[in-house]
């Protein structure tokens, strides 16, 4: 029964070499391989979970963005409206201011003109009076020879002066 009788030599070598194989593979092959496999699985699981998280986060972000956009749009409209109002009021104010200013300028001008006129009249009066005095003096100097003449001359001048 050679086939079913185990040989001592093969038993011996099998025990020795299989033990060595077990030890070597266990220490240098299975440990890193199994560790790497489980590490890979962990990382895949983690990645999947974080992807899911990122997805929901993105959805949330998207909703936030939309809200923000809507708010911004409203804000813009408000700002534009305000600006238009501001523009209108500025223009209105400017117009008012300008008309007021114009009126004031007109008034001032009128006042200045009347004042100038009064001054000119005054000056004219003083000049006329000094002229009259000079005239009177010359006339007096020249024609005070006769009283008649003097009177005539004075009257004539006076007549002229009354023009004013």
């Amino acid at each position, binding site marked *: 029964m050679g086939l079913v009788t185990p*040989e001592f030599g*093969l038993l011996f*070598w*099998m025990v020795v*070499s299989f033990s060595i194989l077990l030890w070597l593979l266990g220490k240098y*092959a299975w440990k890193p*391989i*199994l560790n790497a496999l489980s590490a890979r699985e962990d*990382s895949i699981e983690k990645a999947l979970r974080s992807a899911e998280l990122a997805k929901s986060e993105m959805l949330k972000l998207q909703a936030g963005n939309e809200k923000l956009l809507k708010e911004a749009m409203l804000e813009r409209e408000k700002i534009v409206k305000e600006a238009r109002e501001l523009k209108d009021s500025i223009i209105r104010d400017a117009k008012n201011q300008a008309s007021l200013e114009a009126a004031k300028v007109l008034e001032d001008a009128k006042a200045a003109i009347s004042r100038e006129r009064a001054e000119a009249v005054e000056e004219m009066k003083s000049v006329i009076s000094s002229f009259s005095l000079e005239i009177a003096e010359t006339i007096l100097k020249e024609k005070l020879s006769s009283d008649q003449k003097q009177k005539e001359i004075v009257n004539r001048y006076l007549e002229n002066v009354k023009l004013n």
Partner: protein
Amino acid sequence: MAHKNSEMLKVFRISTLILFWLTVSISGYSNNSPSEKQGESTVEKFNASKLIMEHIADSYEWHIATIGNFHLSLPLPVLVYSQQSGFHCFSSSKFHHGQESYQGFQIGAEGSKYAGKIIETGKDGSEVRPIDISITKNVASLFTSIVILLVIFLSIAKRYKEGFDRAPKGLQSWIEPIVLFIRDDVVKASIGEEKYLRYLPYLLTVFFFILLNNLMGLVPILPGGANLTGNIAVTMILALFTFATISFSGTKDYYMHIVNAPGIPWWLKLPVPLMPIVEIMGVFTKPFVLMVRLFANITAGHIIALGFYSLIFIFGEKSVYAGYGVSVVSILFTIFMGLLELLVAFIQAYVFTLLSALYIGMALERHESHEGHLENSH
């Protein structure tokens, strides 16, 4: 004529009662001496059972081919310890294929108790078997397979060490699904989430060792061709490793269950301990069945394939044309057997691993959860 009749009978045996025939062929094997076969193969009648047995059994040299009278074989180292003359180490080529003796040693003749094994003549003239740890064909094949396993798995492990996030490549992508399958569907499923990691390296090693040697057994020439997993010594050691693992990891519950199985009527235990006897037998039949299953499956596959080849020469001896004719059928059948054996190589490796894992899982089972904290420490 009588000879032809016996040959016909043998054909009948090969093609019909393969497993039963196994025992018959062993007796047929011991009728011829190996030296006869080596020297006179051209004149000798073809002997199918001898050819098959020589391919299945262990040998001191690694036979590659025989062309005419020239034997091409790889001689292997012989390591023997004799109680008379001490330790000897020499090449098996010194025996000249079993025809000569060397240093008082020779290969046992057919018909002797130690046919095909190294023997020496004792003081009283009887044949004595020395302690023989020769590197036989099977041992050389064992070493080769271990070197291949180490090369494959250490190189793969190196790639895994480079970083777990790298995609598998080459051999790694071939091995990785198998490792994952063994881990998830065999070991984790049988032993459980908690403790499977401790037994995983052993079971993976067993699986790949059996698988590789099954496959190498299918390769007809060097470095394959040795029938390693079809050798009872190899399967015995594998089964013993599993047995030791089961026994050392057995919980208190496991042993209590053997002595006093719960849920069984007391009269099956008390006056005659019937159930304990059955349970104790079960402890030893588990590894025994593991041993026999692998051995028988692989050996039977080899015998059938070789039987189909032998048919060619059996018919060829009668008529060359019959030999050619049968060869077509034989080769087709052998190809079919080869493919079947390829499947069996995977199945047997899987079955051995699965059953080992299941037995370990059974030994780890606990019935009362409050004892668990004490049990966890071992």
